[in-house]
C-alpha cells in the first residue's frame, strides 16, 4: 500500500516539472539507484563534509548575527573589534574557549558530565542532514539531491533528534551535582515534553497534505508558486503553533527558562567551562539554524521559489531561496529574543497544555477532515468550535475556582504617566 502511495506521489510530482523533483521522488536519494560505486561514495563524503563545514561556519555567523541584531535592537553597537564588523568574533570566542581550563566539579558524575555536551551537539548536526537545501544536481551519470540524507522517515528524524537532545540538557543538569543546573534541566525536560505534543501534531497536519514523511517530498509538494506553500494551504494557524512550539523546543527566548540567567545563573550549563560549554553553545545556535530551516521546509516551500531563465539558475537559485528564507527566520528568532520577556513557569505550562495542544489537535482534525472528504470539513468545523467553547469555559471555571485575587496582576506593564491615562479604572490603582 505504501509503495502504491509512493508511486502515486511520484507521478503526481513529476508532472509538476520543478527542479526539486526527480523521477523516483519519494524513494530517497536517486544517487543510490545505480548501486554503491566508488563515485557514489565520493559524492556522499563530499556532501557530508560540505554540510559539516558549512553548518559550523553558519553557526559562527549565526552567533555573530544574533549579537549584532540584538545590539541594534537595543541601540548598542555590538561586537566590532575582531575582523570587519566583528565578523570573526565567534572565532575569537571559540579560540578562547578551547584554551580555557576544563573544570569537572568534584560533586559531578564525571562520565555523564563529559558525555552530555556530545548528546547535545551530535543531534544538532544530524538534524540538519534531512533538510533539503537545494534542487537536484546531475553530475555525469549521477543524479543526487542537495541534502545530506533523504530517509523515508524524513521529518520524524527531526522530532527524534530534538527528543534526544533533551537528554544532553537533562544529563548535564543532573550530573553537575549542583542545584541550579538540576533545576534548569528539570525545567528543560518538562518544557520540551510539553511542547513536543503540539509540535508533533502540527507536523502531522503538514504530513497529511504532503502525503509523505520525506522532507524532499514535503518540499516538492509545495512547488509551483507560493500559494502551494503549506503556510497558505494549511491556513497560517499550524505555522504559528509550530513557530511557538519550536521556539519552546529550542529553549530560546521567550521560553528560555532552562537557562534563565536571573534565576538559575546559567541553567543546565552553569558548571560547564571551556569547550564543553562551547559545545552547548554551538548546539544551541546550530539548532536555531536547523529549526529555521525546518520551518522553511515545512511551511515555506524550502528551496522553492521563482527561478529566472538565467544559465544554471536551476542549480543556484533554489539554494539562494533557501538561504534567504532561513536567514529571515533566524532574524525572527532574534527578534523574539529582543521583543518578548521571558514567560513565567505557570504561563509556559498554561500556553503549552491548555492552549497549544488542544488548538493544534483541533486544527489537525479539521485538516484531516478536509483531506478525506471536503464536506466532512464543514461537519468538523462546528464540532471543533463547540469543543473550543467548552474548553475555554472549563478553563475559566477552573481559574475562577482558585480565587482571582490570589494571582498577582500581570507583570511587566509600564505604568503610564497620569496625563496619558484614559478615563476609567487604572490597573493596580483602582480596583
Amino acid at each position: 500500500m505504501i509503495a502504491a502511495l509512493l508511486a502515486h506521489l511520484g507521478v503526481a510530482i513529476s508532472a509538476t516539472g520543478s527542479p526539486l523533483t526527480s523521477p523516483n521522488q519519494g524513494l530517497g536519494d536517486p544517487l543510490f539507484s545505480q548501486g554503491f560505486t566508488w563515485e557514489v561514495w565520493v559524492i556522499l563524503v563530499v556532501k557530508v563534509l560540505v554540510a559539516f563545514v558549512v553548518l559550523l561556519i553558519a553557526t559562527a555567523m549565526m552567533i555573530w548575527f544574533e549579537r549584532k541584531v540584538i545590539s541594534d535592537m537595543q541601540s548598542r553597537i555590538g561586537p566590532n573589534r575582531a575582523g570587519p564588523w566583528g565578523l570573526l568574533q565567534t572565532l575569537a570566542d571559540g579560540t578562547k574557549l578551547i584554551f580555557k581550563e576544563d573544570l569537572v566539579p568534584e560533586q559531578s558524575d564525571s562520565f555523564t558530565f563529559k558525555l552530555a555536551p556530545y548528546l547535545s551537539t551530535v543531534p544538532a548536526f544530524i538534524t540538519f542532514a534531512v533538510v533539503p537545501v537545494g534542487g537536484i544536481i546531475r553530475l555525469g551519470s549521477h543524479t543526487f539531491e542537495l541534502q545530506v540524507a533523504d530517509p523515508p522517515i524524513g521529518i520524524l528524524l527531526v522530532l527524534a533528534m530534538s527528543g534526544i537532545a533533551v537528554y544532553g540538557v537533562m544529563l548535564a543538569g543532573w550530573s553537575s551535582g549542583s542545584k541550579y543546573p538540576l533545576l534548569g534541566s528539570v525545567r528543560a525536560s518538562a518544557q520540551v515534553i510539553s511542547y513536543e505534543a503540539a509540535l508533533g501534531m502540527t507536523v502531522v497536519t503538514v504530513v497529511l497534505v504532503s502525503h509523505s514523511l520525506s522532507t524532499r517530498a514535503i518540499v516538492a509538494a509545495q512547488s509551483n508558486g507560493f500559494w502551494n506553500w503549506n503556510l497558505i494551504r494549511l491556513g497560517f494557524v499550524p505555522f504559528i503553533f509550530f513557530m511557538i512550539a519550536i521556539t519552546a523546543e529550542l529553549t530560546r527566548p521567550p521560553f528560555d527558562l532552562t537557562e534563565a540567567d536571573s534565576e538559575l545563573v546559567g541553567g543546565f550549563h552553569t558548571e560547564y567551562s571551556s569547550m564543553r560549554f562551547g559545545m552547548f553553545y554551538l548546539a544551541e545556535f546550530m539548532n536555531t539554524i536547523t529549526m529555521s530551516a525546518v520551518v522553511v521546509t515545512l511551511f515555506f516551500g524550502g528551496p522553492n521559489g521563482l527561478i529566472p531563465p538565467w544559465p544554471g539558475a536551476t542549480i543556484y537559485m533554489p539554494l539562494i531561496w533557501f538561504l534567504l528564507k532561513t536567514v529571515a527566520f533566524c532574524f525572527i528568532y532574534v527578534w523574539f529574543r529582543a521583543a518578548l520577556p521571558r514567560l513565567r513557569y505557570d504561563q509556559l505550562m498554561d500556553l503549552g497544555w491548555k492552549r497549544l495542544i488542544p488548538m493544534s489537535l483541533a486544527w489537525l482534525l479539521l485538516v484531516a477532515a478536509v483531506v478525506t472528504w471536503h464536506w466532512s470539513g464543514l461537519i468538523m468545523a462546528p464540532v471543533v468550535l463547540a469543543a473550543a467553547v467548552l474548553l475555554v469555559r472549563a478553563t475559566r471555571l477552573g481559574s475562577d475556582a482558585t480565587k482571582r485575587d490570589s494571582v498577582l496582576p500581570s507583570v511587566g506593564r509600564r505604568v503610564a504617566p497620569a496625563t496619558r491615562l484614559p478615563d476609567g479604572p487604572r490597573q493596580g490603582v483602582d480596583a
Partner: protein
Amino acid sequence: MGLGDEVKDQLSFLGGFKLTFQHLTRPRVTTSYPDEKRAKQPRQHGRHVLNRYEDGMEKCIGCELCAGVCPADCIYVRGLDNPPDHPVSPGERYGYVYEINYLRCIHCDMCVEACPTEAITESKLFEFSFTNRSDAIYTKKELLVDDRGMPQKLPWEDWREGDDMMTSGWMRATAPSGNAAYEGEVQWSGELGYGVRAPEGGQSGHRDDELTGTKPLRDILEAHLLTEDIPLAHRGMQGRVWRAKIGAEKNKKKMEAMRVRMNDLRAARKAAKAKGKA
C-alpha cells in the same frame, strides 16, 4: 471589558516587536569606546591628586579625616610633626605616608568633602590599569601634584587633553538641607592657577551648560525618549532637522579623524620609503 478590548490586550505584546524593529534605525547610544570617547562630565570622579599651596607647601596636614570617612577603607595616612627647619606643610603636622588602594576605592569623593584643607581632590582620570595588586596602591609619590600644581601624568595612565586642568574638588554633592533654591553658588574648591570654576546650574532650568562644561545625557539619549518626554523643539520636522544637523556634525568629525589618520599613514609610508632609499 469587551471582547475587542480583550483581544487587543492579549495582542499588546506585538508592540514590543514594533518598538524593537524601530530601534534598528535609531542612532546608537553607545560609542565604539577606545576609538571614540564620550566627553567627561564636570562632576566625574577619577583618581585623586594631593594638592600643594602656591609656594610649594603640601596642603595635607596628616589629620587622617579622609581615612576615617572612607567607606571602602582604601586610604592609609600617617601624620608626622613637621621638621622645624624645613617644614613640608604650613601646619603643625604633615602627611608622612599617604596611600590609596585603587582596587578598593569607589570614588565616592567623601574624602574630598572631609578634607579641611582641600588637600585631596579628584581628577577626572579613570583610564588607568595595573597588572598586579601592589601597583594598584598609589603612594604620595604618584598622587602629589608637580611644581606647577598639575597632576602627574603617569606612563600607564591615559590622560585626555584638558583633563589635568579639572582637578578641583566637588565640595557638596547636593544642596545643603535639600534646598532646591540653592543655585548659582560656587561649590568648587579653587584650582591652582585657574581660580574657581563657574557654578553649576541647579534643577530650575536657568543653567548655562556651555559655561560649566556640563553635557546633559538627556541630549545624547533624546532620540530614545518617549514622544511626550521630548522637548517640543525637537519633535516632528523641527526635530528631524535638529537630528540631521547633529548627525552631519558627527559625520564631519568622523571624516576629519579619518583624514588625519590617512594623512598620518601616508606620511609614515613616505618616511619609510625615504628611509629605504637612504
